[in-house]
């Protein structure tokens, strides 16, 4: 389908729903239906609008239609020795780039290479009034207008339907290695933060049950010298470990119980929650599995300088995202109202402020 046709159709559909105040549920690959507040409204599928719009490896810039699958993007980039630096999880082959950005999902490389929002350069969206708008662009430096394209990252489609996105991409590292250490949680938190303050080619960390995995990425000689400096044991099939971690296919995630995501200060002391934890992002991301109460999770995250999300499972109707301070919630309400006055775009998917 041509660009104008598809986007025009989306505009018309949104206008029609806005006039009737009938909710729309924006759908990409449907791989992240588990995430956020309850799903409401008629489906608006973006998956048919897929394909790479522009990609020139020398530019380090990629422009894609929002319905493009992550797998297609990764293959196109890999063919040129490049990657999406934020290493997004898909949680299924059907995952699209639009859904990924809507959730602002980033993988193990995030603390060292930036999150999805950091790599977004531009966004074309249809707002809740059915207007086709473009923000940002395809250049690395751009300060014209407020940064509405980054605002779309993590907004869960509540401010607009993303139709096209531009990203900064980077060369894949020439070499990678995975090291394994045995250490307790407190020592791990101290160690990974100390290492992150040194010129070392760190690109991921993950700790669970007394075992720390560290990934190094860079020029072969740099990786080799860092291996000597850090010690530990080299893991032969390291790459597989990070893919499984990113996609939540490690045993830790296999249990179907509720999974909590606590995003906290990287140096926060071990959280005493009495439940199994997997700690990524140099201490900044703590996955907790088990029957925590909402209050327990939120208190622990807040005390550790961050916020808690009911990531997967449990009663999503009881609250998913960390409540916002009243003044910040006020801004959210106003932004939501400005971009989507009829309140039809993914209503309630972001459930920590009253629209």
């Amino acid at each position: 389908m041509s660009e104008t046709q598809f986007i025009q159709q989306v505009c018309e559909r949104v206008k029609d729903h806005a006039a009737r105040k009938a909710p729309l549920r924006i759908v990409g690959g449907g791989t992240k239906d588990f995430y956020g507040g309850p799903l409401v409204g008629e489906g608006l599928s973006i998956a048919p609008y897929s394909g790479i719009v522009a990609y020139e490896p020398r530019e380090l810039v990629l422009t894609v239609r929002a319905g493009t699958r992550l797998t297609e993007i990764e293959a196109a980039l890999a063919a040129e020795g490049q990657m999406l630096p934020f290493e997004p999880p898909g949680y299924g082959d059907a995952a699209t780039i639009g859904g990924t950005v809507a959730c602002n999902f980033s993988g193990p490389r995030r603390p060292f290479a930036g999150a999805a929002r950091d790599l977004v350069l531009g966004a074309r969206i249809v707002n809740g009034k059915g207007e086709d708008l473009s923000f940002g662009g395809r250049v690395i430096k751009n300060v014209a207008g407020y940064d509405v394209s980054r605002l779309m990252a993590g907004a869960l489609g509540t401010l607009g339907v993303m139709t096209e996105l531009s990203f900064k991409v980077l060369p894949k590292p020439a070499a990678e290695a995975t090291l394994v250490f045995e250490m307790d949680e407190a020592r791990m938190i101290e160690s990974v933060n100390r290492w992150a303050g040194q010129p070392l080619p760190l690109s991921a960390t993950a700790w669970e049950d007394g075992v720390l995995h560290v990934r190094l990425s860079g020029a072969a000689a740099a990786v080799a010298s860092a291996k000597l400096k850090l010690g530990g044991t080299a893991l032969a099939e390291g790459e597989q470990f990070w893919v499984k971690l990113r996609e939540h296919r490690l045993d830790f995630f296999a249990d179907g119980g509720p999974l909590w995501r606590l995003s906290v200060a990287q140096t926060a002391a071990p959280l005493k929650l009495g439940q199994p934890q997997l700690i990524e992002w140099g201490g900044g991301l703590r996955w907790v599995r088990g029957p925590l109460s909402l209050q327990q999770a939120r208190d622990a995250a807040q005390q550790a300088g961050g916020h808690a999300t009911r990531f997967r499972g449990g009663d999503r109707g009881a609250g998913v995202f960390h409540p916002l301070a009243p003044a910040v919630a006020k801004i959210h309400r106003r932004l939501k109202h400005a971009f989507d006055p009829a309140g039809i775009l993914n209503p309630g998917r972001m459930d920590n402020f009253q629209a």
Partner: protein
Amino acid sequence: MGAAALQALHPPVSVILDRERLAAFEMDAYIQKRALPLAAVLPDDESQVQAVVKALKATGTPIVSRGAGTGISGGATPTPDSVVLALSKMRRIVEIDRNARLAVVEPGVRNLAVSEAAEPAGLFFAPDPSSQSISSIGGNVAENAGGIHCLKYGLTVHNVVGVRVIDGDGDCLEIGGRSLDSAGYDLLAVMTGSEGNLGVVTQATLRLLPRPEVTETLLAAFDSATEAAECVGSIIGAGIVPAALEMMDRVVIEAVERSMHLGLPKCQALLLVEVDGIAEEATDMRARVEALLHESGAREVRTASDEAERANLWKARKGAFAALAMMYPDYYTMDGAIPRRALPQVLDRIYELANEAGLVVGNVFHAGDGNLHPCLFYDGTKPGELERSEALGGRILELCIDVGGTITGEHGVGLEKLKQMCSQFREPEIAAFHDVKHAFDPAGILNPGKAVPTLKRCAEWGGLHVRAGRLPHPDIPRF
């Protein structure tokens, strides 16, 4: 009315009312426009900022917040009915957290002071606008300041993890913090680069990075600007992300040579490439860059490994604007960004347009991220020349838009580029910007009339004009 409200505040806040001292606030480094504000107010802390915003909101008085006043797009230019909120007294470095690699600072702290304070911990703050020795963090956040090392290390938006802000209602917003993300919409992204329109930053938490172990610098001479521009693409296409990749053309090289006598190679274009990282990585990259420079037709390549040699290679680049100011009494610096592949074509077109206008243009810019800074030279004493240079500037910015770029890569819109905003964005997009503004500042008291043009009209303003060889802040290098 606004000024009286300020004097009535308890506890009292420093207020400047006399014309003589107010003159210091009549403009920033965009010297096109000036106006004496009603008053200038210099709060000591966040609670005073909040009290000032609430008092001025009550009287409907426009607030122009100001850091060091180094901005060159007019973001801190007052209007006669406004009060300047100067954050210069709030310059405490609250904390350098070595372990967490974070700095917590007040808005008046100088950019360079952050890196200086972090140095004992082996850390630095990456954004390095050329004004870094005097520009302040509050202003850097407001402008989303860039600098020389953006391709590798990002802009301010990538290096700020949290801010405390007083919005247009006088409410304190805590945005972000110490975690790598926060709940809700990404207000941090919207606040960064909002040019004082959405809130007054009272504190910022900044990400600090480990200082690279080794930095290698190379300077290469080319027989044509096009060749040099193509070489930029080859380096990045080879999978190398340099820390800096700067370019200077013949006009600039000649001006630098005339004023500084550095013994630069006689050539049409110079590329300055810096690679950094772990020793092994930097050495490896340097060898690859050197080979690529030669393959791309470089006539001469000079390299530096120690600090003194590096400083020497950088001298030409850092002294370029001062050298130009000495040679040409009046000039006007533009700021646009383009996709890198368009560099050769855009440079050629800029020279053509300058020829047609009968003016000289020099180019010294951040080639690695496609951020152009063409300098247009004119003689303000010749009738019509200023107007011709402004028209040429406008055409160059439109050229940037035509090739898929933007009208400002790092200087901001301010007052300077309101007109070009109307070329880059369409009406519903401009309306959306006003909606964002309204969400943070429904009364419209924060820096009204800046950054986003009204839908009704786009005013006509110019750029950084250097009059009679005088740069604003002549003591700091411009690059």
